């Protein structure tokens, strides 16, 4: 049984069809990222799975039940900061623990556990108004991982977070995954989606591609780019570089050469070794891997960030 099963899902607002026959399956304990620009329908899809909205037609199941009948399994973290800034982190969590029917003693115990698991024990009694964006988002994730939750739905959780806060956030997510919770991450940030085991790309209400990040890059012919900067550009350097497999393309750039390859790791090692053996002095060599944003662009000719802006 899938943790989440979505089949031919359709949702319309007025005349606008925001979800147009979406199919999606998320396995138990899987980390699945749904990536697309604003207006692509990803938040609507997340809200339908979270039982916040209803579909016009199609099937949505969470562990075999309709979302409204599976609410005890669902932990949903909307995009907005819903924690109360006037309450402390502990008070916010106590509110949710009590809403879920836990007794005061149970709630106290659970809240301590939750605070520890998201790394906020020391800040627990501070008002949320004094939290950073990252701390606040961690607290909000804590409201969605009470015992019994099997599916965690995170809607754009890293929007507005700095790189350090994002790293810290995903370390916490990794710990949650260790509890065998299925996670759906809604995002328009490629580097966030890279962390997922599978990624679905959605645009204009339709799933346009799905697979592991590597599969998506391979399937959609996105190449690694190796940039080589030389002390001196000569024909013999070009000869060495062109001596690799015919799959690779080599182009001259202002300070050196660019090699386009679908197997960058191997070619990078070969380039370094060959140039060294031929006695050529390399000033700088680096490899840029393709991103999921590149895959999205290849498929839609839209930039995610521009589309969201």
């Amino acid at each position, binding site marked *: 049984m899938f943790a989440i099963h979505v089949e031919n899902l359709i949702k319309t607002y007025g005349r606008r069809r925001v979800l147009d026959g979406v199919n999606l399956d998320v396995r138990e304990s899987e980390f699945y990222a749904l990536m697309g620009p604003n207006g692509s329908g990803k938040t609507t899809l997340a809200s339908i799975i979270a039982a916040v909205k209803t579909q016009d037609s199609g099937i949505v199941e969470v562990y075999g039940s309709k979302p409204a009948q599976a*609410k005890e399994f669902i932990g*949903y973290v909307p995009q907005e900061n*819903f924690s109360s800034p006037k*309450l402390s982190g502990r*008070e916010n969590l106590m509110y949710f623990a*009590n*809403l*879920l029917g836990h007794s005061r003693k149970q709630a106290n115990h659970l809240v301590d556990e939750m605070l520890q698991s998201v790394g906020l024990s020391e800040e627990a009694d501070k008002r949320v108004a004094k939290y950073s964006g990252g701390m606040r988002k961690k607290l909000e994730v804590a409201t969605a991982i009470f015992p019994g939750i099997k599916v965690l739905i995170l809607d754009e959780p890293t929007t507005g977070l700095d790189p350090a806060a994002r790293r810290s956030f995903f370390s916490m997510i990794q710990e949650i995954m260790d509890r065998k919770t299925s996670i759906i991450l809604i995002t328009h940030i490629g580097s966030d989606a890279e962390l997922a085991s599978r990624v679905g790309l959605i645009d204009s209400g339709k799933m346009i591609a799905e697979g592991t990040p590597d599969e998506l890059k391979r399937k959609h012919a996105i190449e690694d780019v190796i940039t080589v900067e030389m002390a001196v550009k000569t024909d013999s350097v070009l000869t060495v570089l062109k001596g690799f497999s015919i799959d690779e393309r080599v182009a001259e750039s202002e300070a050196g050469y660019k090699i386009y390859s679908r197997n960058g790791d191997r070619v990078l090692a070969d380039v370094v070794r060959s140039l060294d053996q031929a006695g050529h002095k390399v000033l700088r060599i680096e490899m840029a891997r393709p991103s999921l944003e590149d895959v999205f662009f290849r498929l839609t000719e839209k930039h995610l960030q521009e589309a969201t802006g």
Partner: protein
Amino acid sequence: MREISAAYTKTIKELLREKAALFWTIAWPIIWVLIGSFSFTGSAPQEVIPYIKGSIAISMMVFALMIAGMSNLPASIAGDRANGLLAKLKSMPIKAYKDFVGRISAVITLSLLAAALVIVVGIAVGARFTGSGLGIIQAIGFVFLVICASAGVGLMAGTLIKNLQGAIMTGVGIAVITSAISGLFAPYEVLPVPLQIFSRVYPISSAQASIVHLLAGSDMVAYNPLTYGQITLSVALSFLILLVGTVLYSRLGWRLD
């Protein structure tokens, strides 16, 4: 019960920690009790002044109740909708009516706190009240009518107006305008006839007149609000407003589509 208690605890803590809510609900009516008690007693006979002050304190207490219900309640609802909390709650296995009961109980608590403080300050600056034990109990009944009608208006504003500031300003606007045109801040006898009719029909001003009649004396009210018909109208309209607000909130307030 735990769900109701959770919603109550959260809402009351938020209200008591919100400086703007405390100012407009408690401090602002108290300021007017102070100003009114020293400025508007005019050339009234000395022996009547304590009861005029009592009447002013009652009017400001009613205004405090109106602000609590019509402004703080919609602020709480619209704020939670705007920040995604209602979406979060809808995804959880909890019932909308329990959240409603918890919220409204918190607003009633703040209302009663504000009412008590306004009356205490009124007494401190010389307000005196008449009335028997039964009269006091009847007056408390009218206080609850004011709370019901104000909460009903607040529920409607919080449900129908999606924008937080819009919901607050609508609630405050209704409270201020209806107070002004129903004679809460001015003697009934100076109102034009259409507004005098409105003052008798509007359950909040009618309840206020009843409380003044019961606690400050019949001389302080230009008409008898304690007739069978007038009381029936006030009770019916107060509960109707609360009922409409409750139905709207339960049906539409949690609908996020």
